């Protein structure tokens, strides 16, 4: 392709945008109750323009009540986790880092498991997951401030420790949970699923997720400098203390909110930023929006698989790796030099 990598990146971004839109619309048509593309466009167009209703009730029910929440959730969570992962990787200058590195996921998982054990309602499960996720990160962050020489490394180490602490807590809860009803519930939740997401949860979670993504998007240029390293960034006029707090806060807000409504969906935050880097390079000005689009598209596709493959829904957290890992391995084998 002609032109500089900068121009090429913009074309790729446009392409990803188109692909995202196609997947988004297509996803409405896919599922146990097939809706033909013609019907789908007719209904969507009718809803958009406010035309009089001339389609059967069950089509509307399937499209707007059953499929729309999970499609929107897939797009939102995919974009959120991917951008949070991209931000963490830049901040910690480590491509192996994912949104759960500071313990957000482990904390949220613990919060959810505890709430399920106590038999709380779904809203409380989400709220507790969110609170525990944030709590884990705040504790990890406070510990890391004691590490003067290398605060970034301190943060990662503290995060790993906090994660394992919360994970053991979760394991203990599973041990004492009633194996007939509570345990399967916890296990299923921890696997990650967006099949049963309700519009009210989606509404509540979209505020922190979109807000966090907006903050990261505004910061996208400065993230380039952050990713180069602490000393160099500061010598180029970046206030690292401020950036560290803002990036950690925004990315944590996103990942906790995602985990709180969907359970643990691993993999997206770790690998989608890599796909994005391979496609458009490292410049966060293009790489970050690219990650968002790819993450959203990827999770919608995987969710389509989740509801099509077997008669019983497969938790999406299992499928993300099944679909993504072979593809990623293929990319390593084919273009190992550019990773």
């Amino acid at each position: 392709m002609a032109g500089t990598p900068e121009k090429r990146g913009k074309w790729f971004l446009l392409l990803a945008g188109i692909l995202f839109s196609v997947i988004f619309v297509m996803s409405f048509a896919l599922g146990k109750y097939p809706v033909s593309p013609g019907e789908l466009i007719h209904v969507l167009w009718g809803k958009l323009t406010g035309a009089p209703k001339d389609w059967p009730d069950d089509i509307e029910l399937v499209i707007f009540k059953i499929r729309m929440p999970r499609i929107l959730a897939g797009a939102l969570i995919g974009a959120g986790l991917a951008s949070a992962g991209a931000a963490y990787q830049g901040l910690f200058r480590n491509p192996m880092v994912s949104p759960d590195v500071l313990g957000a996921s482990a904390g949220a998982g613990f919060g959810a498991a505890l709430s399920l054990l106590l038999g709380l309602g779904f809203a409380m499960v989400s709220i507790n997951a969110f609170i525990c996720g944030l709590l884990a990160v705040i504790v990890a962050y406070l510990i890391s401030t004691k590490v003067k020489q290398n605060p970034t490394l301190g943060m990662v180490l503290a995060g790993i420790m906090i994660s394992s602490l919360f994970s053991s807590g979760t394991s203990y809860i599973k041990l004492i949970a009633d194996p007939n009803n509570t345990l399967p519930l916890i296990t299923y939740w921890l696997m990650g699923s967006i099949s049963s997401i309700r519009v009210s949860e989606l509404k509540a979670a979209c505020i922190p997720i979109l807000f966090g993504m907006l903050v990261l998007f505004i910061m996208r240029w400065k993230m380039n400098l952050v990713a180069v390293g602490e000393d160099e960034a500061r010598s180029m006029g970046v206030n690292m203390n401020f950036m560290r707090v803002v990036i950690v806060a925004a990315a944590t807000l996103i990942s906790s909110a995602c985990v709180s409504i969907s359970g643990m969906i691993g993999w997206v935050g770790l690998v989608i930023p890599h796909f994005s880097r391979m496609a458009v390079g490292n410049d966060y000005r293009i790489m970050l929006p690219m990650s968002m689009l790819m993450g959203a598209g990827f999770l919608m596709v995987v969710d389509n698989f989740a509801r099509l493959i077997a008669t019983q829904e497969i938790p999406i957290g299992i499928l993300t790796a099944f679909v993504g890992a072979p593809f990623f391995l293929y990319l390593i084998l084919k273009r190992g030099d550019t990773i």
Partner: protein
Amino acid sequence: MKLTVTDLGFSYKNQETLKHVNFSADTRQCVCLLGENGAGKTTLFRCILGLLGGYQGQILIDGADCRHKSVKERARLISYIPQANLPTFNYTVFQTVLMGTNPLMDTFHTPGNKERKLVYEKLELLGITHLAQRGYANLSGGERQLVLIARALVQDSDILIMDEPTANLDYGNQFRIMEKVKKLAGQGYLILLSTHNPEHALLFADQVLVLKEHSIIKSGSPKDVLGSKMIQDIYGIKVELKNISTESGMVPVFVPCLDR
């Protein structure tokens, strides 16, 4: 522009790294800092760059104290050229140099055409325009060092601090980089660099600083400072200073006196 360091002291925890460091330097000067490993060269640089807080004494630029300047104000005055290590993320040369425009812009601005032009200007100046779209990690050590210099020039500050710019470079690149550095000093920059090669100081420095036992024990022109006695003091090795006649005049060199 004048950089003055008065009575600078710094301790890591209880370990004193710098004490009573005094020197001053002007633009159009290439200042070489010599000292054995662990003498505190990097600490001194980090203090001047504002990367280490909590130092004693003063660091003044044109008489104004740097202590309370914001990171951005400081970036407009001093830029930093680190050692050209392998980066985590392989940015292109253009993207790398573009980062230097950060302190020139308002907080939420991203680089536009003006900044792009500036980048190409400096790449041109250093003769590396052809590398613009290459990945930084795929370059040789010497090319990487030039890219980092270009990034510092884009920053448009008068003081450049270089941490061992010739470390990890081959013999030829060491001299090519030092010649470029010397030329930049002539164009109006103040360049403060650390080096482990006293001959570089001898050949290229306008002023030499010797850091030993946490403070600057001697400063002045290379001829005055760098005798064989001083080299033995710094590095604990016996050398003789010889002037050798070459095509381009007399060149001073150190010859180590090794046991035979």
